[in-house]
C-alpha cells in the first residue's frame, strides 16, 4: 500500500509539473493565429466538416479547396473542425455554436448531417451567416442560411451518356458508396444518360454499404470487389459515386484493362498516378465553387441565402476531359448538355 501511494504521489507531482510547463510554454503566441499578408476582408469563416475532414480526397477536400481559395484571394480568417463518427446531434450543434462563440461571422457546414443543427444554431444566432452543403430541407431553412445543393443527376447524365458511347459490350456498371437518396441521384442520372444513347444498354448497380454504416464511402477494398464483379460479368465502363472507395474501382479497372469514371473532382488529376489512365472522365461536383461563392458574396456585402442550386446551367456540375479519352464524343456530350440546360431533357432524381 505504501508503495502504491508513493507511486501515486510521484505521478501526481510529475503531472502537475508537466501541466505547468505546458502552460508557461504555450501562453505567448497562441492568440492571433493568422498573420496573412494578403488584404483583409474582415470576414471570419468557420468550417465544420463531415466525418473524415480535410484530407479525405473527396467531398470534404473539395469544400476545403473553396475555403483555401477564399483565404488566399480574399484574406479571410478561417477555422476548421471535423465531425466525429457516430456523434450526437448535440455535438454537431455545439461545434457550430463554438465557432459562433469564437466570433466567426460565417459558418459553413459540410454535409447533410448538419441540417438540423444548422437550422437550430442559425435561429439562435441571427447575426451570423450559415451555409450548408447538400441540404435544402425545412430543417436547415432560415433567413441567414445558404442552402447549397447540386444537380448531381444532370452531371451523371452526361457521364452516363459518355459511358454508353464508349462501351463496346453494351454493358456498364455503377458503384454507389452508401445506399442513401443522395447517391441514388447519381445512379438515376447515370442510367438515364446511358439509356438516352443506347436504350438497350445493360446497367449493373451496386451499393457498398447500407446506412448507418457509412464505411462504403471510405473502403477501397469493397469498391474493388464490386467493380471486379461487374467487369467479370462483361461491363466495360464503371462509374463510382463512392468517395474514397472509388480508388478500388480504379484498381479493378486497371487490372481488367477496362474503363472507369470518377466523381466529385477531376479524378484523372487527383487519383494515384498509376490508375489515372483508366479514368475516361469524371462527374465534377463543384463544392469548392459553391463554398467560395458563399464567402465571396459575403465579402461583397451581398449575403447568399435560400436554396442555391448548382446545376449544369450554373456550372455547379460538369464532366471532365482530362486525358483526352472522350475528346471524340465531346461534341455529342455538349449537345446533351445544351438540351438539359434548355430544359428539353428532364433528368430524373430517382432510379
Amino acid at each position, binding site marked *: *500500500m505504501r*508503495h*502504491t501511494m508513493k507511486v*501515486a504521489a510521484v*505521478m*501526481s507531482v*510529475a*503531472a502537475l509539473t*508537466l*501541466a505547468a*510547463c*505546458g*502552460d*508557461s*510554454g*504555450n*501562453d505567448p503566441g*497562441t492568440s492571433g*493565429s493568422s498573420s496573412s499578408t494578403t488584404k483583409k476582408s474582415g470576414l471570419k469563416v468557420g468550417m465544420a466538416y463531415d466525418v473524415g475532414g480535410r484530407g479525405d480526397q473527396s467531398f470534404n477536400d473539395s469544400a476545403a479547396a473553396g475555403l483555401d481559395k477564399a483565404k488566399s484571394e480574399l484574406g479571410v480568417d478561417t*477555422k*476548421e*473542425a*471535423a465531425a*466525429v*463518427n*457516430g*456523434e*450526437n*446531434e*448535440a*455535438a*454537431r*450543434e*455545439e*461545434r457550430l*455554436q*463554438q*465557432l459562433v462563440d*469564437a466570433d466567426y461571422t460565417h459558418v459553413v457546414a459540410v454535409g*447533410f*448531417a448538419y*441540417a*438540423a443543427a444548422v437550422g437550430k444554431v442559425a435561429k*439562435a444566432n441571427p447575426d451570423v451567416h450559415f451555409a450548408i452543403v*447538400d*441540404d*435544402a*430541407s*425545412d*430543417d436547415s431553412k432560415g433567413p441567414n442560411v445558404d442552402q447549397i*445543393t447540386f444537380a448531381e443527376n444532370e452531371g451523371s447524365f452526361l457521364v452516363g451518356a459518355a459511358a454508353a458511347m464508349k462501351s463496346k459490350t453494351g454493358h456498364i456498371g455503377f458503384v454507389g458508396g452508401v*445506399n*442513401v*437518396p*443522395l447517391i441514388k441521384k447519381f445512379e438515376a442520372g447515370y442510367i438515364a444518360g446511358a439509356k438516352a444513347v443506347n436504350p438497350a444498354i445493360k446497367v449493373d448497380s451496386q451499393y457498398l454499404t*447500407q*446506412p*448507418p*454504416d*457509412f464505411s462504403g464511402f471510405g473502403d477501397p477494398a469493397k469498391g474493388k470487389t464490386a467493380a471486379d464483379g461487374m467487369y467479370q460479368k462483361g461491363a466495360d465502363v464503371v462509374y463510382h459515386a463512392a468517395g474514397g472507395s472509388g480508388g478500388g474501382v480504379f484498381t479493378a479497372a486497371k487490372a481488367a484493362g477496362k474503363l472507369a469514371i470518377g466523381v466529385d473532382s477531376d479524378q484523372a488529376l487527383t487519383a494515384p498516378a498509376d490508375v489515372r489512365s483508366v479514368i475516361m472522365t469524371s462527374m465534377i461536383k463543384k463544392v469548392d465553387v459553391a463554398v467560395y461563392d458563399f464567402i465571396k458574396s459575403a465579402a461583397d456585402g451581398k449575403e447568399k441565402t435560400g436554396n442555391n442550386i448548382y446545376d449544369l446551367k450554373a456550372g455547379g456540375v460538369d464532366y471532365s476531359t482530362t486525358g483526352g479519352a472522350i475528346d471524340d464524343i465531346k461534341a455529342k456530350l455538349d449537345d446533351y448538355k445544351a438540351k438539359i440546360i434548355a430544359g428539353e431533357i428532364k433528368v430524373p432524381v430517382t432510379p
Partner: protein
Amino acid sequence: MKSLNVRRILMSLAAPVLALVVAFVVTSLVLVAVGDPVGEVWKTILAVPKPRQGVNIINAASVFYISAIAVAVGFRMNLFNIGVDGQYRVAVFAAAVFAGQGWLPGWLNIIVSILIAMVAGGLWASIAAYLKVKRGVSEVISTIMLNAIATGVVSWLLLKVADRKEGSNSIETKTIPDSSQLEGFKLIPGATNRVYTLLILAVLVGLLYWFVLGKTRFGFDLRATGRSETAAVASGVKVPRMVVTAMIASGALAGLVGMPLLFGQDHNYGTTFQSGLGFAGIGIALLGRNNAVGIAFGALLWAFLDVQSNALQIQAGVAQELVNIIQGVILFAVVIAYELIRRADKRIEQSRVASELAAQRRAAPATEGAPA
C-alpha cells in the same frame, strides 16, 4: 468497524484517482511526443463548462448511465453483454417507428413506445441467451455477431419505412408528433438548451438496479451466480434460468438507452442518430465498478470529456479524437489500479489480522496461568 468503512471508501476512491492521474500523464506525453500544445489542450478540456455545455454533459451522461447499467446487470453475473450496442439500436428503431405513427396521444404514446423499446431490446438479447443456455455459445461471440446483424436489419428496415423530407438527403423514420416530443427541464440557469425529461428514466433505472441487485432474493442469486456458479447451484439457484433472465433484463435496459435521445432531441431514428453508446457503456460500467453511484460518476466523467473535447479543434487545433486516447488510458489504468488497490487492501487486512492474533496470543499465557 467505522475506521474500516473509512478505509474502504478511501480505497475505492484511490483507484479512479490513480487512473485519472495516469491518464493525464500518458496523454500529456503523447501530446509532447507529437508536438501538440499540451497546456492549451488541458486548458480547453478542464475549462469550466458554459451553462449550455453543462446541460449537454448531463444529457450525455444520462444516456451513458442507462447503457452502463444495462452492461452492469450482465457483469454482475459474469455475463459479458457486448451486445448492448445492437440491442439499443434495434429497440430505438422499433420505438421510433411506433411513436412516429402517433396512434396514441402525448404521454401515452411515449410510455407505450418505451415499453416497446424494452421488449425489442429484451427479445434481441434473448437470442444470445438462448444460444448460451441451449447451445453453449459464448455470449461474447454471439452478441458481437448480433451487433453486426442488428446494423444490417435496422438499415434494411429503415429503407423500407423511411420518410423522406422535401430537399433532405438523410433517411429517417417518421418524426414523432409534437405532442409526444419532450421539451425538457430548465435545470441550469442561463442555458439556452434543456435537460432531457427522460433524465428521470436514468434515475429510475439506477434506483431499480440498486434495489433489485442489493435488496432482493433475485439480486442475491444473480450476484451469487456471478461469484461462484457451483456455489449458486449448490444453494438451489437454477443457473440457466438466471442466465436467460439476466440477459433479457440487460437487453430490456439496453432498450432504454436511446429513449432520452429519441424523445428529447432527435425525434426520429435516422442516419444521424448517435451510435456506439453500447461500447461506451462497457467502459463506464468497468470504471464505476458496477456500482449504481460509481457508474453515475463514470458516466459524468465520460460525458464531461466528450463535451469538452468538442472545443479542442477550435481552441487548441488538436483533433477531437484525442479524447478517445484519454478515455482509453483511463480504462486501462483503472483496471490495473483496481487490482493494485485490491492487493494492497488484502495485505493491510492480513497484517491487521496478524497483529490482532499476535496480541491475543500475547495476552493468552496470562489467562492460562490464572486458574492455577
